[in-house]
C-alpha cells in the first residue's frame, strides 16, 4: 500500500506547489518602499511649468500619487476610475507625468479628463527611479506623515479599489 501511496503523496505536494505558483503574478514585485517615507521631490507642474510642487506640500493629508504617461496604454484603462475617484472627493490624486512630452500630456488630459489635483513632470524619470517605478501605471497611497502605505503596480481596478485601496484610505484618514 505504502509503495503506491508515497509517490501519490509526493505528486500531490508538487502539484499544490505548482498550482500556487500559477496564481502568482511575477510582475508584482513587492516594493521595499512600503511603510517607508515617500522619496522627496521638487518638480515643475504640468499645467503651470513655472510653478514647483514639493512632496512636503502634502504632509498632513492622505494622498495618492499616480504615475502616468500619454504613451502608456494601460493608463487609459484605469483613467475613468481615477476621474470618478477624484470627483467623489474622497482623496486628492496627484499625477506624476512620467517621461512624457508636455503638449501630448496636456492633450491627453483634455481628451480623457483630468483627475489630478496637480500633475508634476518627471521628464527624465529620475523621481520614477526613486519611487521604484518600473511599469506605468503605478499608484501609491501616502499617509499624513508622508509614509508610503500601498503601491498598486499596473492599472487600478474596481476590485483593487474596493478591496484594498478605499478601506486603507479610510483607515489612514482616521489616524491622527
Amino acid at each position: 500500500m505504502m509503495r503506491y501511496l508515497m509517490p501519490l503523496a509526493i505528486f500531490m505536494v508538487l502539484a499544490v506547489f505548482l498550482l500556487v505558483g500559477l496564481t502568482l503574478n511575477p510582475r508584482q514585485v513587492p516594493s521595499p518602499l512600503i511603510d517607508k517615507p515617500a522619496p522627496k521631490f521638487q518638480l515643475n507642474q504640468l499645467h503651470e511649468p513655472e510653478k514647483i510642487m514639493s512632496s512636503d506640500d502634502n504632509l498632513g493629508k492622505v494622498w495618492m500619487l499616480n504615475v502616468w504617461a500619454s504613451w502608456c496604454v494601460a493608463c487609459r484603462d484605469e483613467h475613468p476610475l481615477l476621474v470618478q475617484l477624484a470627483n467623489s472627493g474622497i482623496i486628492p490624486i496627484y499625477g506624476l507625468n512620467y517621461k512624457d512630452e508636455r503638449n501630448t500630456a496636456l492633450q491627453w488630459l483634455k481628451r480623457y479628463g483630468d483627475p489630478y489635483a496637480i500633475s508634476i513632470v518627471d521628464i527624465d524619470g529620475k523621481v520614477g527611479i526613486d519611487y521604484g517605478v518600473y511599469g506605468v501605471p503605478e499608484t501609491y497611497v501616502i499617509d499624513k506623515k508622508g509614509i508610503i502605505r500601498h503601491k498598486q503596480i499596473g492599472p487600478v481596478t474596481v476590485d483593487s479599489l474596493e478591496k484594498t485601496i478605499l478601506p486603507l484610505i479610510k483607515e489612514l484618514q482616521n489616524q491622527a
Partner: protein
Amino acid sequence: MICQFGNVVRVIVFSLALFLVSPLNAWAKEAIPVAEDPEIEKRMLALTVDLRCLVCQNESIADSRAEFSNDIRREIREQIKANKTDKEIVQFLVDRYGDFVLYNPPMKPTTILLWFGPVILFMVGLGSLVVYLRRRRLQIEDVALSPEQINEAEALLNEDKKGKNV
C-alpha cells in the same frame, strides 16, 4: 539586344545587393557605444550583468534594451562619475526595487531555504537511499539449495555443454 539585357540584369542584381547590404550598414553604425569614458562603461557593465531588468524579467540590465534598463544604466553611470562605490550603487537600487533586482540573492532568513534547500534535499535523498539499501540487504536471506536442486542444476548445466559439443 542580348548584351543589353545582360546589363539590365547586372544592374538589378547590383542594386539588390546594395539594398540588402545597406540596412546592415545602418545597424552597424547604431551599435557604436555611446559612452564617452570606457572605464566607467566597464564598471557599469560589470555591475549590470548581475542586475535584473524588472520590465523584461529574464534579462539582465546589461543585456536589456528596455527603456527601464536604459534609465538604470544612465543612473549607474552618473553615480560612478559621482565616485560612489559599487556597493553603494547596488544598495541604492535594492532600496528602490528590492532584492528582486539582484540575480544573486543575499543570505537572509527568508532565503535560507533557497540557499540550503538543494543541499537538504540531497541529504534526504542520500539518507533514504542508505536506509533502503540496508533494509534490502537484511531482507535477502541466503537460502541453501537442497541436494535434489543441486543435481537438477548440474544436469541442466551438463545438458548445455553437450548441446554445444554437438
